[in-house]
């Protein structure tokens, strides 16, 4: 039975509040954002995260790493042409995850998947070398500078910072658009 303090039927939006709260709690989601990602908003989100982390008692090295991964993840979510993106931060007993999701063209799914698979196979040294190549001379490198409007160097940067494989998911929305989610992990015992 649904209890309401009003004699009138409650707003339909209220029915979403508890399931959303429950979903966040059950999945250890400590921060969620959905909407356009602009540089101003990135600063606001980072300030909020910084505030929450500073009062959380989390190890400063882990907090800093989580923060740095969020900086790059948010940059990946910036896309003025395709509108909204979704950012999720999960806090599990042994790790944090930062996921960024945004729409991409379906034609780009294959290339992007292959690129992330390739990045996940690189050793730390090869990752560093690939990052250096793109940083120093992107046009002469045999690594593409971007895949599906996603800067390759950002993906390499996330892989280096997290020191873990990057997880991803593509959901086909229609024949033109797919939703791309990329997750970076930060182990709490990171060394």
């Amino acid at each position, binding site marked *: 039975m649904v209890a309401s303090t009003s004699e009138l039927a409650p707003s339909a939006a209220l029915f979403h509040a508890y399931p959303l709260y429950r979903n966040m709690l059950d999945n250890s989601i400590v921060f969620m954002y959905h909407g356009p990602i602009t540089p101003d908003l990135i600063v606001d989100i980072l300030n909020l995260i910084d505030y929450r982390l500073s009062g959380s008692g989390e190890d400063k090295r882990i907090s*800093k790493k989580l923060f*740095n991964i969020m900086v790059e993840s948010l940059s990946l979510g910036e896309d003025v042409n395709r509108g909204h993106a979704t950012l999720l931060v999960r806090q599990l007993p042994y790790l944090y995850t930062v996921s960024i999701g945004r729409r991409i063209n379906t034609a780009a799914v294959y290339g992007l998947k292959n690129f992330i698979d390739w990045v996940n196979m690189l050793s730390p040294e090869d990752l560093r070398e690939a990052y250096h190549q793109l940083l120093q001379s992107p046009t002469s490198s045999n690594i593409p500078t971007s895949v599906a409007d996603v800067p390759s*160097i950002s993906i390499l940067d996330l892989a*280096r910072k997290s020191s873990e494989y990057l997880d991803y998911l593509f959901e086909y929305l229609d024949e033109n658009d797919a939703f791309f989610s990329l997750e970076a992990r930060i182990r709490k015992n990171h060394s």
Partner: protein
Amino acid sequence: MEALRIESTHKTPRVILDPENGIFEFSGRSIPEDSVGFYAPIFEWFDRYAKNPLPVTHVRFDLEYFNTSSSKNILELLKRLEAIHAAGHEVRVTWYYDEDDEDMEETGQDYQALLNLPIELSVKIQS
């Protein structure tokens, strides 16, 4: 040569390039909306400075955080300093990082590896 001073914003670093007082500093955050546009006048300033640099140029980077778009521009900036150094002028770079920020330290190491330029990595003194 006239100094270039850019005040920091919540998205861009404070920049002081002041040869008269021997101060060359970048501090704060760097996630500008238009990274190329922000760094362009700094590149132009260094291109003019390179024609008649001080005997010793000591540049300090004390950045809080930045994205990869900015890191490319910082590399371009350091390449200009490398050219001044290669022309026989003394150039030193100090790259400050928080002792808990291994990514900022690693970025400094990246620049050390990519450039023929004396870059000293230095832990920030906590106030």
